[in-house]
């Protein structure tokens, strides 16, 4: 046996739509999707390719005075005197791969794979050869003009000073991959197993620093200044230290990689060129640039045809420099490799297309924000409205509540309440002088001391009612017994919200009571930090949002209450009697019999109220909630297109309210009760 339970059926379902409606919907969706998205902008590379006159891999690059040097496999050496635009050959330094280079003031040193070091102590002097007799060395650094540090496999550290080699190897024997000095004293060496070693005496002694990830292999380090030290691992991690001396190292959570701790590439070197700007190299044509200390890393677009692995940067300053890589690739830039936007021009907002291009995102944000508060506001307002309407229609009076007690008990309750009421009056009154008001100024007490005033007012009410209790007779005939406390409570509420302007309520609740902030704090305490994205942020990340839905809901609830109350009054009294006569409780009859009918009756006026709520939501702009109206004003602030901006905003509102009205009309049809309403033809 199929029978409908009391409840609301599904309002919209694809299967219930007639074929015509389906076609209209599908065609509309197709049309909207097929509107071409025009973009007037194109992004191109910030790098230029230079001719290096070699196919050998270039491993190291270094600035030396006005020159920039590049060193590569088989002793290849190239230099440029015009910031890397044109390159000249230089006599090979040996025939072994040159793997690392460094400069300090006028000195420059190059390390070859067989442990030979080539050095110039002056800009114009000749290369001299120093043999370290070590193999497996990986990186060289100059600590002052005449001190060399080389590091390599098995944790080896050798220092060349006073024309003598000193073994500075520590007890840490992981392979070391890079060493870098800031000045002559402070240096860092990094390597496998997350090894970080630091020196503050020019490389004579090295101390271990704890790494945030002991499993990673740190391949490159850059000691920019005592507060900015960065390193990268071959798994794409960025680690950094901002503590003087590099005592504490942390793993960067990279925003542009979705708060991951790794870029999805194996990095090979890092260069810090300013206090915020960092350049990265990696295999397969990876060049990265961060403008904010590694929080966001953008991959450089490369010139067409370049896809080598890159090995080293050499930067004259924070924008001009070169990068070298495998197969003799040398690129130069005057913008740190940052991608260039071309086709960018000052938009002409008088052109409606360009205006829309600027405004559509803002409009969409505003639209979503408006729909968001409207949905929550409607739900909240409706719940409050129903509750208030039930309170207002509740027939429970003091007489009903007290009937089951004997007169003696009622007098007892009355006495206790009277004492409490008088105490409330006394406590309230005692607070007032603290406000230091004079005479007539005491009318401002409700604002000056809300708690005191509430105590005073409540005290008077309690005292009056309890006096009536004490004077109670057998039949409870006194006038105050007829008071319906739930009704009174709801009346105070609705009177307050219906007799004050909504815009003032918004400001009072958000700025005065700071309701949004308080709710957010409670939510943070319960569910943790909302972050800046995701579901938590959606619900309580924005305190203006919280204030807005509560204000709208509380306000709309007061109006909806009266509408629903009217609908309840329109239900024949016999319905309640019938429900009660089969044994249902008052609340049961309300829920199962009265409310289902009343809500159906009040769909049109409630719909009115909901449309009002949508339109009233525009007032949320006064507390800074970025709904449609506020977005409209922001659009105008940039574009000065007043007609277009407000026009779009107005249409957006229309779309929201019209859809809402459509939904409600549909709901009304679906829930229509046979036998009610007009019939009998036109």
């Amino acid at each position, binding site marked *: *046996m199929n*029978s409908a339970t009391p409840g609301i059926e599904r309002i919209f379902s694809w299967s219930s739509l007639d074929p015509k409606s389906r076609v209209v919907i599908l065609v509309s969706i197709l049309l909207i999707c097929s509107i071409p998205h025009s973009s007037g902008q194109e992004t191109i590379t910030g790098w230029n390719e230079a001719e290096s006159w070699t196919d050998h891999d270039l491993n190291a690059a270094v600035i030396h005075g006005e020159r920039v040097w590049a060193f590569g496999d088989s002793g290849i050496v190239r230099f440029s005197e015009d910031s890397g635009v044109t390159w000249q050959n230089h006599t090979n330094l040996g025939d072994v791969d040159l793997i690392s280079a460094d400069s300090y003031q006028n000195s420059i040193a190059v390390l070859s794979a067989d442990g030979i070091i080539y050095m110039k102590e002056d800009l114009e002097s000749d290369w001299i050869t120093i043999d370290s007799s070590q193999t497996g060395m990986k990186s060289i650094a100059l600590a002052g003009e005449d001190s060399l540090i080389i590091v390599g496999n098995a944790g080896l550290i050798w220092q060349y000073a006073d024309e003598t080699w000193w073994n500075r190897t520590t007890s840490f024997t992981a392979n070391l991959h890079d060493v870098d000095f800031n000045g002559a004293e402070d240096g860092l060496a990094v390597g496998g197993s997350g090894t970080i070693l630091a020196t503050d005496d020019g490389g004579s002694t090295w101390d271990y620093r704890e790494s945030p990830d002991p499993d990673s292999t740190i391949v490159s380090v850059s000691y920019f200044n005592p507060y900015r030290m960065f390193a990268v691992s071959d798994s794409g991690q960025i680690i950094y230290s901002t503590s003087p001396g590099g005592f504490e190292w942390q793993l960067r959570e990279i925003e542009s990689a979705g708060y991951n701790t790794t870029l999805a590439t194996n990095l090979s070197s890092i260069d810090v060129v300013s206090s915020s700007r960092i350049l990265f190299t990696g295999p397969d044509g990876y060049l990265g640039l961060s403008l904010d200390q590694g929080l966001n890393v953008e991959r450089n677009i490369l010139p067409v045809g370049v896809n080598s692995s890159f090995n080293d940067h050499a930067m004259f300053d924070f924008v001009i420099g070169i990068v070298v890589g495998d197969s003799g690739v040398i690129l130069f830039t005057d913008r740190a490799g940052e991608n260039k936007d071309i086709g960018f021009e000052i938009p002409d907002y008088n052109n409606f297309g360009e205006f829309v291009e600027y405004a559509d995102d803002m409009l969409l944000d505003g639209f979503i924000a408006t729909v968001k508060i409207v949905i929550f506001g409607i739900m909240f307002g409706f719940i409050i409205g129903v509750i208030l309407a039930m309170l207002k229609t509740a027939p429970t009076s003091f007489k009903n509540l007290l009937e089951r007690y004997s007169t003696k008990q009622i007098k007892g309750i009355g006495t206790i309440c009277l004492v409490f009421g008088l105490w409330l009056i006394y406590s309230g009154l005692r607070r007032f002088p603290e406000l230091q008001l004079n005479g007539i100024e005491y009318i401002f007490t409700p604002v000056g001391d809300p708690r005191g005033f509430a105590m005073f007012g409540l005290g008077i009410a309690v005292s009056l009612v309890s006096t009536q209790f004490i004077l109670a007779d057998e039949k409870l005939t006194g006038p105050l017994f007829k008071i319906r406390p739930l009704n009174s409570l709801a009346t105070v509420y609705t009177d307050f919200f219906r007799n004050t302007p909504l815009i003032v309520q918004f400001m009072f609740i958000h700025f005065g009571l700071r309701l949004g902030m308080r709710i957010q704090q409670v939510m943070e305490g319960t569910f943790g930090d909302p972050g800046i994205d995701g579901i938590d942020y959606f619900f309580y990340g924005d305190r203006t949002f919280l204030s807005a839905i509560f204000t709208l809901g509380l306000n709309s609830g007061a109006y909806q209450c009266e509408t629903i109350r009217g609908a309840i009054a329109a239900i024949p009294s016999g319905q309640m009697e*019938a429900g*009660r*006569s*089969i*044994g*249902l409780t008052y609340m*049961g009859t309300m829920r199962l019999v009265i409310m289902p009918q009343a809500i*159906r009756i009040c769909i049109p006026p409630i719909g009115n109220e909901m449309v009002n709520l949508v339109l009233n939501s525009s007032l949320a702009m006064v507390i800074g909630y970025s709904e449609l109206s506020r977005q409209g004003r922001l659009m105008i602030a940039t574009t000065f297109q007043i007609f277009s901006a407000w026009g779009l905003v107005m249409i957006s509102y229309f779309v929201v309210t019209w859809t809402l009205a459509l939904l409600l009309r549909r709901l009304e049809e679906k829930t229509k009760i046979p036998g009610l309403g007009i019939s009998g033809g036109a």
Partner: protein
Amino acid sequence: MVDVVLSIRDLHKIYPGGVHAVKGVSFDVHEGESVAVIGSSGSGKSTVLRCINRLIEPTEGAIELRGEQINTPSANVNEVRSRIGMVFQSFELFSHLKVLDNVTLGLRYVRGMSKSEAEEVALDVLKRVDMLERIEAYPGNLSGGQKQRVAIARALAMKPEVILFDEPTSALDPELIGSVLQTIRGLSDEGMTMVIVTHEINFARDVADRIVYLDQGKVAEEGPSSIINQPKTERLQRFLSSMHEEST
């Protein structure tokens, strides 16, 4: 001696406006008995009936259901009402529910039955009132007589100890009255205890085991249904003749 199901003792009702509608009415209803309460308009018939299941709180007096006083503040009014069925003059079906759901509502939410159990009971009582064909209809699509029979089914489904009929046929067209009266007569034959407030003198005489005649808030005459044919008091005589004049 048959059990007394319902006992009304010295019932008074003074409305808030000061109208003294019922002035000390007392009578008993026995198991399986149908009592017809008759009287002219304003004689307090409906007030007495509504006082019985406390839709109106009596000002004074006692109402006992199986010897237990039910008009005290401590009595569970909802439990009491679920044992007393009530059929209204204007039907008062729940217009947003289908016929079947009208009947099952009390079973499910008062008796706590499951949906299928409740429907089983409901179909049974709907069969008794001959409304099985219209269980999927909404009340708005039923005729007056059908509505009243559904209302009777709704009261019957709760298996009440006594059913109160508040002028069950006064809102019906003359040709529809028959089916409703037929249904009530059937219930009477099955031994249902009933209190019927009615204007249908002939029906009262045919169905009721006993007649209570109210006049100006008091029991003016009480006796077996034969008092309709041989009224003892002059007032009942006058009332009956006025009814007779009306119907001719």
